[in-house]
């Protein structure tokens, strides 16, 4: 294994790869799940992990904005909107 490859697969790179996997899993869950409330929580988790990712990539400005807007305010607005409409995707109205 050459030096560059070993340098790429160091600890920091591993953490970044793990974090990106943890970012993708809630995103896919948000697409797949039918319960919109669970989707919102999944998106909030995604934003939280994404802000950690931004922090590790030395963009603390973006990390603060992502944690404040993505994980907090957007979640609240989505929950209010779900409360006004329907909780389940596909028209079955079970509140």
């Amino acid at each position, binding site marked *: 294994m050459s030096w560059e490859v070993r340098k790429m697969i160091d600890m920091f790179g591993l953490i970044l790869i793990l974090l990106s996997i943890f970012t993708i899993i809630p995103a896919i869950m948000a697409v797949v799940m039918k319960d919109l409330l669970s989707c919102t929580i999944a998106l909030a988790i995604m934003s939280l992990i994404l802000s950690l990712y931004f922090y590790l990539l030395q963009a*603390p*400005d973006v*990390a*603060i*904005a992502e944690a*404040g*807007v993505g994980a*907090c*305010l957007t979640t*609240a*607005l989505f929950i*209010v*909107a779900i*409360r*006004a409409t329907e909780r389940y995707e596909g028209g079955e109205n079970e509140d």
Partner: protein
Amino acid sequence: MRKLAGIVIAGIFFISMMMLFYHLPASHDLSSNEYYYRNPINGSVANESIPEHYIKYTKNETGAVNAVTAIVVEYRGFDTLGEVTVLFTAATGVSFLLSLAVRGRKREEANLILKEGSKLVLPFILLTGAYIFIHGHLTPGGGFPGGSVVASGFLLMMLAYPKFFMKDRISWFESAAGTAFVVIGLLGLVLATSFLQNFIPVGTPGQLVSAGIIPLIYIAIGFKVGSELSAIVNKMKEVQG
């Protein structure tokens, strides 16, 4: 069929995003040709690239230790005015749409722990938000994240108390802050040479009172974003109860 179309569209998007990686410069190679500023009128080229200029001279030119803030507010201040306008338009649209909606059902009282705990936590959330936007030129953060933290504090109060509403006076804050931003820009036009140019002495970089107009503009943006987002949340709560 729809799933197939979705997969194809997502695939095209993914490939085009991946193709961006070919156009990224190698790390620390900021002096490549694409980054030189070329004057559109006479075609002359500056003798250093724009990223290099930002990295080398930001601290002396603007007095801000945080280079991101210096770029957002000072070098690209006009773009920030545009961003603030976009947020203002969104808030206006939300309140216009929701003014037509019917009032929702009543909500029951929150429990004791949430009510008392939110009272205890609110000052600290507001303090953190104010710290983030006042210290925008020294530490990471700025008007937009600080304002959203302030708004999240009011959101907590709205969740805990069903009868907690923002007063209509909050729109005064919003318009005053927006006007302050534009007035500071116009003062730059009058006292210096161009719109949003710094006209206050820069001071010692690293101190709270330094960096000229950057803290002033960021305080204005913080108030504006905080009041706008609180107004949006407040409007949705008014409709939903």
